């Protein structure tokens, strides 16, 4: 039954009611996230193949990572996930101010993550660890330094794609903040907040795997 009370501007013509519309959007968003799983999955597969082939080089490459910065970023991202989930929660309750605060915190934490990532990238740049003609790696042990370059290639590809997703997420958060300020979200209609929430958590999820794979699993291995 279409409810005449709800703002009719939010109901698209081809849906029966807002509930139908929202459940459909959520399902659509999940399908999109499924494509994202496969997108990052391809890179993970490449990572796995080379780790198995060039284990020693992988250990050497992995041990150049700053665990401290990686851990800080992990914590930052987990906190941003909490503030994100809270902004969805408050949007559903129609608490505009709290929603705005949580969205803003999420945005700030997201930017913090990107800042820390930039510091890390800068460090790799200074150490000539960026793949390409200027790549240079002081190596000891039984491996070809070029193989370490492949490690860094995948490191930059994966974390770069992840950071790109973060930047897009930050843009979406700004968009939400503007719409929230205009009072567009109500307890009946808050789908955009929820959709961006799903996206943000997914980006967090990718990092949850990137962190151990790139920083942790070879850290204390005596290659």
């Amino acid at each position, binding site marked *: 039954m279409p409810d005449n009370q709800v703002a009719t501007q939010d109901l698209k013509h081809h849906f029966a009611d807002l509930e139908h519309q929202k459940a459909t959007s959520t399902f659509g968003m999940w399908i999109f996230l499924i*494509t994202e799983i*496969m997108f990052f999955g391809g890179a993970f597969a490449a990572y796995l193949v080379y780790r198995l082939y060039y284990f020693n080089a992988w250990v050497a490459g992995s041990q150049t990572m700053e665990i401290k910065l990686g851990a800080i970023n992990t914590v930052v991202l987990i906190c941003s996930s909490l503030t994100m989930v809270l902004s969805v929660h408050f949007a559903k309750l129609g608490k505009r101010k709290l929603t705005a605060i949580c969205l803003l915190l999420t945005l700030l934490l997201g930017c913090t993550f990107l800042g820390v990532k930039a510091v890390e990238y800068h460090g790799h740049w200074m150490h000539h660890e960026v793949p390409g003609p200027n790549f240079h790696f002081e190596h000891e042990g039984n491996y070809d330094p070029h193989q370490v370059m492949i490690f860094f290639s995948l490191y930059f590809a994966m974390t770069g794609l992840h950071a790109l997703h973060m930047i897009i997420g930050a843009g979406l958060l700004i968009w939400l903040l503007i719409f929230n300020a205009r009072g567009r979200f109500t307890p009946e209609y808050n789908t955009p907040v929820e959709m961006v929430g799903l996206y943000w958590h997914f980006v967090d999820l990718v990092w949850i795997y990137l962190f151990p794979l790139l920083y942790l699993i070879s850290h204390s291995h005596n290659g």
Partner: protein
Amino acid sequence: METISHTSQAKPNYLNADYGLKSWLLTTDHKRIGILYLISISVFFVLGGFFAMLIRLELLTPAGDLVLADTYNKLFTMHGVVMIFLFLLPAIPSVFGNFLVPMMVGAKDLAFPKLNLASWYIFMIGAGFIMYSVITGGLDTGWTFYTPYSTTYSNSNVVAAALGVFITGFSSIFTGLNIIVTVHRMRAPGLTWRRLPLFIWAHYATSVIMVLGTPVLAVTIVLVALERLFHFGIFDARYGGDPLLFQHLFWFYSHPAVYIMILPAMGVISECIACFSRKRVFGYDFVAMSSIAIAVLGFLVWAHHMYVAGISTYAALIFSLLTFFVAIPSAVKVFNWTATLYKGSITFETPMLYVFAFIGLFTIGGLTGVFLAAVGIDLHVTDTYFVVAHFHYVMVGGTVTAFLAALHFWWPKMTGKMYPENFSKASALLVFIGFNLTFFPQFLLGYLGMPRRYHAYPAEFQVLNVLSTAGASILAVGFLMPMIYLAWSLQYGKDAGDNPWHAAGLEWKTSSPPPTFNFDETPTVTWEAYNYDEIDAPGGPTHNKGVEVAG
């Protein structure tokens, strides 16, 4: 059942609802977006056909006398890229899927109309990048972008073309996403899964592949671009990278992509064969499930493209075995279509002629695919014209044939006009003859050992090549004719009425052309799919179709 209106001209419909370029470019009506796609892919089909024509002209003589070897490399690459990414992949799902899926499920539109329009724009932007690469010197890597050639050695504009493919991939993902969500969430009351037309099942399976496969191609292209621009070394053997990893990731998408091209075609065939045999499709459940089975099994077979590339013998044998399994659901479909014909009241309208062509040609294309799945035979014919003939039997004999069947079958619904039956039958005949004359000799050439992708060849292959080029000319006439008479019919064709074929299916229960929101009232479905026994029963709506109707 709604009353049949013979005055559909007066009724407002999606075509006369609004006028002007803007009303088309900003539309969110799935039917208009389907038409936008139809126009775009037709242009690319002609362009891809133009490259094919130059290829066939070069191969008329053994010497490489028409174009340089480098130019020839660019011709077959651009033929492949344009035909696959800009025609075959979107051909049926984005045109007919867009147009028909909402109507077949009794919905007003796809679940996400704006996303649908965005997918067309994204497609056109991606196509723009590919065209940019074509214009600025062309692309010579083959449509497969194999590394390390594409990343290190090719001097052509790889990055623009790869970016174009990457972007069109998003269009494909959005179309697939929209279809999946629509089928799940937007079905009319009473339209259960087992009452869905097989066209919907086929498109659902296709969409699953689009959603699961395309992202892997996307990330692979990103890695290729990084490698080419910044020399990352991931696929470069000089740095320990493995070029074969590219092939693994590429074919993980691109083999299932073959099923993105053929599955919707199979859906079209199921609709047409039921209508022109006046029977329910034999073994409905099996045909529906075989679509899903093809989608799933399609992801398990990719390395059969790589038998000679250096994969392990063990992996080759595993992939060979898995590939044989795909033959099972494909055969289920062919046998069930054939069984549908049994004791049917068969008539031979143009779409049905294409159906017969499809079944024969797809069977040849599919069975030669089983040959190629066997490692031993594949070693002999890898990279020969046998492979070229095989996939053209599937892609042209299958997909393009079904595309033409769909175009003729639903043309009255899309435009409200009938096409001229005599011309269309003649063109169907030309397509069939021309196609076989073009590609059957290529099986023989391949088996004799003529490799693909060379602009010159030994003189003893000339007779078969001349036959092939002659066939291509006939085929070209067969393809050009529909463009002319269909355009003609827009102005001069007879009014089609709402349901000229007396076909089952919700799309035929609304007027032709349909109104903007498809149905005046959301239909409630109480009947099974393909209820031709009810439609043709005494007192049913069938009148003067020339079908024997009891009573």
